[in-house]
């Protein structure tokens, strides 16, 4: 009788050895397969007839962003400058100058809005670069012109700007372009 009662008093033990084995295998396997740098892609839209194709009059007007060494230009329609955005000093290091993508985004948002008011639904844009413009600059510009972060109620969403991006050469002779269009 005494023996019987002793057995009951002992705590019931769960045998978790096999579960532990599984975990010990699973954790390193998953850790190894974990990706720390995600690779994504940016789509590119080619101009229909290659760069430098003749623009007919019945073609829609082209919105351009010109990447120069020390400024960004917004042209609309092609060749007529709407706004020149100068470089700004970097926040980390005031000696280095960076392109002002934030301002570019603000102006493009405004252009998108004004075009919408005129009933033009524009989604395409042409990014014109110099031969020595580096890839990162082009990608950053593409990021900027593609979309912007808008706050809807409490959520941050990607609002569309001009997602159909084409690349092209910047015009060489910048000096004789028409003067800035002022309101």
């Amino acid at each position: 009788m005494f023996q019987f009662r002793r057995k009951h008093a002992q705590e019931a033990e769960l045998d978790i050895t096999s579960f532990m084995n599984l975990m010990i295998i699973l954790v390193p396997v998953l850790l190894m397969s974990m990706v720390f740098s995600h690779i994504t892609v940016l789509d590119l839209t080619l101009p229909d007839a290659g760069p430098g194709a003749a623009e007919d009059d019945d073609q829609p007007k082209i919105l351009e962003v010109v990447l120069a060494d020390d400024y960004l230009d917004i042209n609309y329609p092609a060749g007529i400058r709407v706004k020149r955005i100068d470089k700004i000093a970097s926040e980390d290091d005031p000696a280095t100058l960076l392109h002002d993508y934030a301002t570019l985004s603000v102006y493009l948002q405004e252009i998108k809005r004004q075009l919408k008011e005129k009933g033009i639904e524009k989604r395409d844009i042409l990014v014109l670069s110099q031969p020595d413009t580096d890839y990162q600059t082009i990608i950053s510009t593409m990021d900027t012109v593609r979309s912007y972060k808008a706050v809807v109620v409490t959520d941050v969403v990607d609002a569309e700007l001009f997602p159909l991006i084409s690349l092209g050469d910047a015009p060489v002779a910048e000096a004789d372009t028409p003067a800035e269009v002022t309101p």
Partner: protein
Amino acid sequence: MKQSLRAKRMAKHHKRLGSGSKLNLVSLMDIFTILVFFLLINSDDVEVLQNNEAIDLPKSVAEQKPDNTLTIMVSASDILVNGQQVARIADVLQAEETDIKGLAVELNYRAQRAGELTELQQQKGRAVTIMGDATIPYQLLKKIMATCASTDYRDMSFAVSQIAAKTDDTGVTTEPVDLLPQNIDGEG
């Protein structure tokens, strides 16, 4: 067997202590369970593109997942198609013509091997992903794009390394007024 009272008491004492000194695995199990779920959720997307040590991809906030397409890698010294070297950067930059001969040959060969185009491909062209180093000049990129376009690989995308998008307060900046020239009259 006859035991002394003391021996009995000591045996009982040892038994009691022994049962209490088992390894306590509960907290370890908790950690493992949480870790396994975390890793399972995080590893749902499989890496399609293999990044190369030699290529430092440009950073972008793009979120589009890559498709499994032909990949052109552009490192600081070479151009590779699916891991096979087709041209050297130094030669390409010196050459006058807009096309890259080695790349064009390789792309044509691969287009032949791939066979007939589907309807969607005829419209958009064959798909290709360009993985370029962040420092390559536009000049080089243009030649690669021109070569791809001329060999009917017109559906291009650029591989980028994703960074977290910073939520900028663009609304705060002063609103520019009336940017557009007045003479824009509808879609002309």
